[in-house]
């Protein structure tokens, strides 16, 4: 049995930031990550980030991940375990872990005073005929294959979804030498930032708004995709079909928070459409209805890596503070972080996030 003040579950942007903040406050921290490396989905982000300097604007995602990992290593009081998945949180405060090693899978237990959960999100899918054919991949999967393993997903791709992820990944496909036949979106407007859309259009990729995917065809692998225009009620209009000979369909229709551990441990949950699904209720310091459980990042609501990092820092500082660790700049830092978060959620694009958060506070 291991003992720690704070257990952080998830080694992505929110978990790394939480571990750094708690480490800085002097708490004993254990950070666990299911994958072989830390950084979460930052490791495949080859594009530069927006936001302010504090959130690493103009730095590429994978470099941000490296910086956070280096910072975690500064603190002797922060221990890390990779290839380690949290299996469950029990009533007596014990968390069970499965650690994969070269030779075997090891079962571990840890008792923590406070747990910060930053488990990220899952990719959504879409219902359409033959949507399970090989060659139909989540947008994140396509990005992982290209940017982490340097493998092309195929020869010719149709992108479903013109949000920021769909636009950015279409551009990254072109950078990898893959043809993009087009981008479709059922909405009448492009959801992502105009800078990304313009870049794509300049490269000669058509964007079809008001279209949805209706059918995929192929024997053991995708060969053809059919799209159709949608009416006011999002139903396909017969006679408007267009066919694309493609070997990859990339589904970029958003993410949903990874909420299993919150359900299992018994946090009060709320379905919030603007945040992508079920999320735990929490106060502004990211403390859930169970006072020893905190949440941060996409598992708190789908947003961006920038806000995940700020949330992680808030959760890490607040959790340590509540355990009695004295960090003299606590008040100043936490106020600054709360303001940063407000800044990130400002403007027209942040409206749905602000609406969402009004539903989960307590």
């Amino acid at each position: 049995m291991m003992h720690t003040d704070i257990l952080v579950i998830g080694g992505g942007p929110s978990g790394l930031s939480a571990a750094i903040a708690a480490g800085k406050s002097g708490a004993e921290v254990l950070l666990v990550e299911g994958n072989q490396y830390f950084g979460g989905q930052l490791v495949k982000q080859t594009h530069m980030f927006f936001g302010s300097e504090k959130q690493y604007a103009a730095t590429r995602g994978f470099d941000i991940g490296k910086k956070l990992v280096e910072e975690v290593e500064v603190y002797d009081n922060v221990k890390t375990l990779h290839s380690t998945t949290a299996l469950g949180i029990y009533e007596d405060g014990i968390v069970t872990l499965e650690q994969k090693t070269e030779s075997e899978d090891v079962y571990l237990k840890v008792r923590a005073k406070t747990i910060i959960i930053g488990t990220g999100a899952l990719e959504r899918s879409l219902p359409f005929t033959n949507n399970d054919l090989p060659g139909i991949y989540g947008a994140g999967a396509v990005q992982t294959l290209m940017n982490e393993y340097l493998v092309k997903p195929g020869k010719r791709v149709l992108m479903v979804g013109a949000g920021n992820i769909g636009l950015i990944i279409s551009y990254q496909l072109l950078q990898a030498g893959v043809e993009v036949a087009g981008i479709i979106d059922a909405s009448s407007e492009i959801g992502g930032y105009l800078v990304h859309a313009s870049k794509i259009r300049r490269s000669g990729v058509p964007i079809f708004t008001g279209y949805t995917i209706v059918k995929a065809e192929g024997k053991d692998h995708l060969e053809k995709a059919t799209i159709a225009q949608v009416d006011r009620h999002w139903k396909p209009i017969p006679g408007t079909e267009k066919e694309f000979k493609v070997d990859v369909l990339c589904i970029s229709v958003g993410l949903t928070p990874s909420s299993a551990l919150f359900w299992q441990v018994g946090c009060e949950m709320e379905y919030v459409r603007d945040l992508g699904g079920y999320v735990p209720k929490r106060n502004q310091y990211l403390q859930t209805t169970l006072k020893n459980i905190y949440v941060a990042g996409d598992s708190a609501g789908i947003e961006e890596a920038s806000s995940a990092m700020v949330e992680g820092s808030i959760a890490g500082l607040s959790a340590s503070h509540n355990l009695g660790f004295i960090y003299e700049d606590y008040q100043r830092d936490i106020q600054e972080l709360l303001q940063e978060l407000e800044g990130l959620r400002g403007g027209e694009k942040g409206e749905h996030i602000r609406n969402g958060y009004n539903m989960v506070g307590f």
Partner: protein
Amino acid sequence: MKQRIENHPILDIPLRRKIKFYYNDKVIFGLEGDTIASALHASGITQLSKSIKLHRPRGFYCAIGNCSSCFMRVDGKPNVKTCVERLREDMVVESQDGRGSIK
């Protein structure tokens, strides 16, 4: 190796050691750093298993170990998430039809 990215404006393409493994009794080569699924994909193999009830062809969907669509039998062990399992020399990888069973 026809699906490998050979040059890229942002990413470095390192020289990587070849790793030999077996896929349904065929010898295949992947590269150091590959997962089982990325190595198979690079060799043009995208069907990893068949679905439990209707035995429809299945590839991966999420590639980060969440969706369970990439299960294969590896070194005799069923239901291995091949999208996150690192490739090792001489691994024996077999497609899985339906629910895996322990031989």
